[in-house]
């Protein structure tokens, strides 16, 4: 057996002295795509809470009232399963897209990327481009530096506070919140969460940036497990690029010289400060800034684009790339069935729910005429979007009477109706005089206007044993 060549290991400590990264701005196809993504995602985030649905906020996770409003739907704590389901769908979607497209999430959609991009734009606006920023940081403090740094901080802090305010606006009605801010009458916790989230945005997008991806993000650590040789990655074409070296515009490369002109633009634009030419690295968030930078340079020197490009390990080795692989098919099938099931379950969700709680203070009460009374608290929850009238029935092994009897319960949309109810039953069988004893009874709640809308709940009916 031939001895394998010793693999080259780039050892570096997990934590080392942090070099500040000054990403150079870049233009090109993928930069445009990311800009679009930033505008769309931030637009959704900042505008969504202001959208009205009827006379309420369209999207509101009303924690104080324990109701989630999403457009026409109202979710209750009883619907928690849907939230769990949604999170599983989100996780599986992440696996699916990672298996096909690599770290697409990191490069275009992750809030960390999106807000960092926005903070970088503000930084560029205040301090200028990469060389200017580096120079400014090295320069001694003077009026000009103070003015630029102050401008940046003012932009950052206002944007962060607005972000915190918007964030809280998803959990408490944003229009009321804006009114409270205008009159300086906000609640303590609201102020706290606005500042908390604002500070988190400021710190993460302004200062921590790529360190969040490197050290804090769990996804960055395990995403490699979803990769295979057919996953789209951003790679430098070593075969074509090496040996690298400078050359003049329009001058044919020397024999044996590769296409890489070693301009280091790919390194300068990288938000995580890596050199893509060293190979695929865990630090790479697949933002494609290096592709845009390299394509620009290749256009200038007159070489074909794509020295750095989206490709797969197989394609680089001149092997066919397959999109449909077992893992992609598996993730896709699971994802489709989960989404289908979710949509069906939400659509078929019962518009009403019924809770019955036994009165804890008394087990039962015997009446003078030989009956047993049990007392319950009945909670009717109308999840639909209009007022409904309900009738309540109870059934068991022998006839039961509800007190008050034959009542109709008018429950407004999205409201909980809580009422005490007494269930009466004979203690003895009227014919055999045998003791009837305790049993499990069924409460049925029916909508008066729609026979199909009904819900059952069981409860224990207690009675003397002898």
């Amino acid at each position, binding site marked *: 057996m031939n001895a394998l060549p010793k693999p080259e290991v780039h050892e570096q400590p997990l934590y080392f*002295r*942090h070099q*500040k990264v000054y990403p150079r701005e870049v233009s090109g196809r993928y930069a445009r795509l990311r800009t679009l993504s930033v505008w769309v995602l931030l637009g959704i985030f900042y505008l969504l809470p202001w959208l009205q649905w009827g006379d309420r906020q369209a999207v509101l996770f009303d924690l*104080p009232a324990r109701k989630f409003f999403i457009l026409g739907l109202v979710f209750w704590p009883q619907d928690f399963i849907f939230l769990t389901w949604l999170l599983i769908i989100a996780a599986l979607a992440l696996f699916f897209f990672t298996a096909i497209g690599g770290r697409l999430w990191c490069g275009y959609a992750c809030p960390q990327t999106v807000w960092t991009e926005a903070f970088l734009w503000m930084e560029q606006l205040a301090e200028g481009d990469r060389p200017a920023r*580096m120079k400014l*940081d*090295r320069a001694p*403090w003077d009026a000009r530096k103070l003015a630029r740094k102050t401008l940046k901080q003012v932009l950052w802090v206002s944007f962060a506070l607005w972000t915190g305010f918007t964030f809280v606006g998803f959990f408490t009605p944003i229009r009321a919140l804006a009114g409270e801010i205008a009159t300086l009458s906000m609640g303590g916790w609201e102020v706290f969460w606005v500042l908390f989230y604002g500070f988190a945005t400021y710190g993460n997008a302004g200062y921590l940036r790529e360190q969040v991806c490197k*050290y804090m993000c769990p996804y960055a650590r395990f995403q490699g497990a979803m990769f295979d040789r057919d996953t789209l990655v951003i790679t430098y074409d070593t075969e074509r690029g090496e040996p690298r070296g400078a050359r003049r515009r329009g001058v044919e490369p020397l024999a044996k010289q590769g296409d890489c002109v070693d301009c280091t633009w790919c390194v300068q634009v990288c938000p995580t400060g890596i050199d893509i030419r060293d190979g695929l690295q865990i630090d790479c968030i697949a933002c494609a800034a290096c592709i845009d930078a390299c394509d620009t340079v290749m256009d200038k020197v007159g070489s074909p684009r794509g020295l750095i490009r989206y490709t797969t390990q197989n394609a680089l080795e001149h092997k066919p790339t397959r999109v449909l692989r077992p893992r992609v098919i598996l993730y896709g099938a699971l994802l489709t069935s989960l989404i289908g099931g979710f949509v069906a379950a939400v659509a078929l969700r019962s518009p009403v729910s019924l809770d019955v709680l036994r009165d804890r203070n008394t087990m039962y009460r015997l009446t003078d005429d030989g009956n047993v009374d049990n007392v319950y608290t009945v909670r009717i929850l109308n999840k639909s979007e209009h007022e409904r009238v309900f009738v309540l029935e109870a059934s068991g092994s022998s006839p039961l009477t509800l007190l008050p009897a034959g009542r109709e319960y008018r429950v407004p949309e999205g409201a909980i109706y809580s009422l005490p109810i007494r269930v009466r039953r004979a203690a003895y069988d009227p014919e055999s005089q045998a003791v009837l004893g305790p049993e499990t009874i069924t409460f049925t709640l029916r909508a008066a206007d729609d026979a199909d809308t009904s819900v059952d709940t069981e409860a224990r009916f207690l009675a003397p044993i002898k």
Partner: protein
Amino acid sequence: MSPPATERPDLGAAARAAGIVLWSAFLAAAVATMLCFAFLDPAALSNGEAPGWWTSRLRVYAVGFFFFWLVCLLAAGLSWYLGQPAGPRRSQ
């Protein structure tokens, strides 16, 4: 305050460990808070025996979150501490 030229000060191993412990405990506490209050309604539990600070749902949520954070901090901190290789025994 003089700005860092191109390098920021090294925080040191202790600060980094603290960061990891705080952050992982934060994530776990967020999940715990969500799960806990999805099933328990603070308002339904506020009978006469509730403590004095048990005044509004939002307040209970917030206190609950910080309580969970504290407990998760304990677990994460202990994991970190016990995961450290024990130093050489000094028998002298």
